[in-house]
């Protein structure tokens, strides 16, 4: 799978070149590497937000790369969950509404289930709070509950601990891992923080996975 960006001056910027990548059902993997090296782009390709220039992506027996944008949107809403570094909660919506909106996107809004998820991440008492009224750690927990909203088969976490202090970072990763395990969903965490590797049984260096620039050397 390759992704090359066209720059404004006409030059081409290869960012991702992953010859082969497999993740088993329920597997948890950490990918670590330098900032700006293309890890987020890789996740965006897996999520179908970006389209690869070549290669193919198959998730849950569906060829993502063969789907039109609307099909990729639908697949993302039903099969995947996304956790971001800066949480990316909808600022006008409460914690509960953030989870409900994620469910509604796939047509499965269920208030009971949303409350249950918030309870799992220890946010029951704050379900009616707006993101601005929550601490950073609390916001990340809501982000995790939202990622699990549609019982996904794969969770993509992009620098999920980047905004957290070491204690909260460790707690969040453990929470994410345990919830993914309990729900039988696979997890890919990308991070520039080498400490993340200690939390995972399987971890790999992004530079080992991505072959961009390797031929030149």
């Amino acid at each position, binding site marked *: 799978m390759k992704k090359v960006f066209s720059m404004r001056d006409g030059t081409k910027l290869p960012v991702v070149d992953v010859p082969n990548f497999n993740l088993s059902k329920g597997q948890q993997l950490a990918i670590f590497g330098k*900032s700006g090296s293309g890890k987020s*782009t890789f996740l965006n390709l897996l999520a179908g937000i970006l389209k690869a220039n070549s290669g193919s992506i198959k998730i849950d027996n569906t060829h993502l790369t063969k789907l039109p944008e609307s099909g990729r949107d639908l697949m993302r809403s039903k099969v995947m969950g996304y956790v971001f570094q800066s949480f*990316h*909660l*909808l600022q006008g*919506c409460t914690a509960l509404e953030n989870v*409900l909106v994620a469910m509604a*996107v796939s047509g499965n809004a269920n208030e009971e289930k949303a409350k249950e998820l918030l309870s799992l991440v220890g946010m029951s008492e704050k379900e009616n709070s707006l993101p601005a009224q929550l601490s950073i750690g609390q916001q990340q927990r809501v982000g995790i509950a939202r990622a699990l909203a549609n019982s996904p088969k794969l969770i993509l976490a992009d620098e999920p601990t980047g905004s957290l202090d070491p204690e909260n970072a460790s707690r969040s990763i453990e929470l994410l891992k345990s919830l993914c395990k309990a729900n039988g969903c696979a997890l890919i965490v990308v991070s520039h923080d080498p400490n993340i590797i200690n939390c995972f049984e399987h971890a790999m260096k992004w530079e080992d996975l991505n072959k961009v620039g390797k031929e030149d050397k």
Partner: protein
Amino acid sequence: MNLNSKVGLIFFLARKGFRQHFFASLVAAFSIALAGGLLLGTMKIQKQTQTSFNNASGGFDAVLGARGSKLQLILNALFHLDASPGNLPWEQYELIKNTPGVKEAYPIAVGDNYLGYRLVGTDPKLFYDHEWKKGEKYKLRQGRIFSEMAKEALVGSFVAKKLNLKIGDRFQPYHGLNFKEDTQHEDIYVVVGLLEATGTPSDKVIWVPIKGIQLMEGHDQEMAQSVSAVLLSLKGAAGFNLEIRYNRQGNLATFAWPVAATLASFFDKMNWFRGVLQVIAYVIAVVGVLMVASTMHSSLNERKRDFAILRSLGSSRVIVMGVIMGHAWLISLLGALGSIVIMQGIGWITQTIIAEQTGVLLDGMNLQYEDLWVIGGIILTGLIGGLGAAVNAYRSDVVDNLHPTS
């Protein structure tokens, strides 16, 4: 709200956007409301003023008066506005009263006032027999109708309220149609009756016996043998015949008939004013569109990240576009509702001014079927304002708005 339907989700998020940008949304809605209200108001005022003036002609089909403008004659004799074009000899009244086809003929004499309100002399039969509206005769709120030869007055409801006149009150009229302090007559009149409101110009008049005006102290002898105009109800083809007799073959009097057509020509002359108001309404509408566009644009800039989040959750571009259009729709809907309120406000102010000036009471400004087109236009106007931002939202790049990247 059912979040599982796309429309439900769109309006849920649109409502959130409205709340997040409450003040800007409210200002945009107000601009639309102002434009819509002004447009609806001018349309209705034009229509209802004309209808109300036609209905307020006191149940008369024609007016006979001195040679001159038909419109001036009607405004003076039926609406108690404008100056009298002159007098007619009493014989002309007798002549037309006995003409076949003339159902009713009431002479009137004007020329005096009390504190700015006109005294109109007439035959008391007007209040016993005449229907000022189909099936409606004048009704007394209190007292009785004046006697033919006494110095008695019957007061219209508007005047009674304004001057606080009661039965038994005495007053001395002033000469002329406009109030001047140094022109008071010596004659003393007694209020013997108060009329119920009719919503017509007769509410703004103090009615007295015609002999009272004719023989008022200080009036010249000629006036005792003349009338200002004759109010007429006709039957059959009398109108055509009298038109020919007075206006084409004779030169003694003017026969103002039909009243409605003469008033219509008057309102046609006022069309420019309506045009000006409509141009103002359209200019405000353009401002409204720009306000919505500006609100949507600034809201879009602030919400680009929200939309990128929605897209990352799996929302389609159409839903993101729908949220912007839903927000614009909420603004437009509020604007449309506001325009009805503003229209009612304009109606109330106009109604008060016209009633004060003419005594003609306009009907309430109720919405009618054809107004739905205007309301639809108001909503469409707001949606047009949101369209640019919605297209931008549709095109916006998810990745660019989901910083930082690693």
